[in-house]
């Protein structure tokens, strides 16, 4: 058998990612508290943040003097938790909805059609921003949870639709017809026929979806739409400003976006490359799993 290179590379990239998320903050060169060091003495000169790439800040620092490498490592856990929560929610709602919509023609099918119609016709990113800007979600102290729900909701219809399509093709299989002719109960049919046939494809899709969610978080970051409530700081003229308090990679992009035009492009690239790395890991692993299933069948 040909070696499944994609699975191996993707798998090792994922292991490195998870290890970083789990153990990274305890490494000696990582500043887990993310101390802001606005000024620093070097060779008798007082220098001001942001600092350039140096042994002390291997990936530079933010304009507040927070070390970029430490922030990436500390934020990895938060980012992965959000990404997994969104994808899990999508599939926990999408799979039963798709199965129900395939079996019965009533409410579930109407709901799925509606979800699909509303959320696929307006681009996902715009829909997410639109919902994220609703004052109720914008000012809610549980904003992060609402944002997870919103990001899951905008693509639930797509997941449900895929499940429905695949379930329909399983229904047409002769072994399912045989099972139905034998008088098996729906639960038994589900357990013995639908789930085993659906599961492999769903696992692959789930891996690919993790990458998609991460890209969405990055896009929101570029638009400086925060996932977290943040604290509001008063400004002039009765204004206030949301100040980001989170360390996930999307928020990190939004913190660096204002520096984009002042020559600190390197520090935007740090979270973006972290996202690219993770997206590649998820996609390679998903694609590798698909090849594995193809080889086995």
């Amino acid at each position, binding site marked *: 058998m040909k070696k499944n290179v994609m699975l191996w590379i993707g798998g090792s990239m994922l292991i490195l990612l998870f290890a970083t998320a789990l153990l990274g903050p305890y490494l000696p060169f990582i500043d887990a508290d993310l101390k802001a060091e606005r000024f620093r003495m070097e060779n008798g000169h007082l220098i001001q943040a942001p600092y350039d790439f140096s042994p002390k800040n291997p990936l530079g620092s933010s304009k507040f003097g927070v070390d970029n490498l430490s922030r990436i490592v500390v934020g990895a856990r938060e980012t992965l938790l959000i990404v997994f929560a969104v994808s899990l929610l999508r599939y926990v709602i999408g799979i039963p909805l798709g199965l129900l919509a395939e079996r019965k023609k009533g409410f579930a099918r109407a709901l799925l059609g509606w979800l699909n119609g509303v959320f696929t*016709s307006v*681009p996902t990113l715009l829909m997410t*921003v639109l919902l994220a800007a609703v004052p109720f979600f914008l*000012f809610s102290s549980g904003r992060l949870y609402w944002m997870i729900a919103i990001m899951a909701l905008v693509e639930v219809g797509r997941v449900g639709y895929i499940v429905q399509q695949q379930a329909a093709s399983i229904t047409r299989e002769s072994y399912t017809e045989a099972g139905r002719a034998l008088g098996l109960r729906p639960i038994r049919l589900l357990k013995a026929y639908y789930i085993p046939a659906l599961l492999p494809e769903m696992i692959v899709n789930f891996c690919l979806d993790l990458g998609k969610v991460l890209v969405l978080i*990055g896009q929101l970051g570029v638009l400086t739409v925060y996932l977290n409530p943040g604290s509001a700081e008063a400004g002039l003229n009765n*204004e206030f400003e949301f100040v980001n308090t989170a360390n996930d990679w999307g928020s990190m992009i939004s913190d660096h976006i204002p520096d984009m035009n002042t020559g600190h*492009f390197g520090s935007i690239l740090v979270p973006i490359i972290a996202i690219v790395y993770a*997206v590649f890991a998820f996609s390679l692993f998903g694609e590798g799993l698909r090849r594995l299933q193809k080889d086995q069948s």
Partner: protein
Amino acid sequence: MVPDGSLDWKAYGQSIRSFASELFQQGSLGVTRYGEPVGPVVLKALLLSLPVILGALLTGFLLGIPKGMLDYALSRTRLSMLGSGITWIMQALPDFFILLLVRRTLIHHPKWGIQFFNQQGWESFVIPTAIAAIYPIFYIARVTSAAIASEEGKLYIQTARAKGLPEHLVFTRHVMANTLGRVLTHFMPIGVYILSSLLLIEALRNMPGAAYRMFQAIDYNKVSASTGNVEPGVIIGIAFGFMLLAQLFHLIGYLARRRMSLH
């Protein structure tokens, strides 16, 4: 003062009522924050984006199909990683990564004479179109090479070969004819992807096309005095435009699928 986000149902109801009454009694979507009527504003924004959308679709098909043929041709040689490998990598790259790199490069090389932010000249069409077309090109390349591979060895092709049809005619008349139909069935996801990549492209180029104008109308702003600048008319108008486009893409994909199943 920081709003606490509690729902003021009365105010919500009031503003929805007044919006609806204007919509149904006068047939207008109201005015923008600058006092212009919404209709022409929405139309202008859509017309700004439409050439980019169509250009990206066209570029995607014109470059993606040859790339897919190349990938398929290379798949049996040692260079297969060069073909499908590059296609796969380009497809997995997040769009904002490419976008930010292009923006940075063009800003830092003024000598090249390519103005990233140009709203009038050729750049205003070519730059967004090229960036929006990247994903479709590689998506279509992937679909094309898979479709060619699935036609391989089918009976009608063996028949054509057995009848002595030259190989290049077998490929153009039979394999590609069927492949094109199959690629067209993917019209909807490609079109919708272009629509959703539009927002970042327009936002980073500062061009108020449909997606960015809708973003401005949503008025998400982390520094804000109030949330009074939301323009519901613009949001609804542009969303309607997007829905029409998505339905059009859906229809094209549906027609292609029906044609495939008739064969």
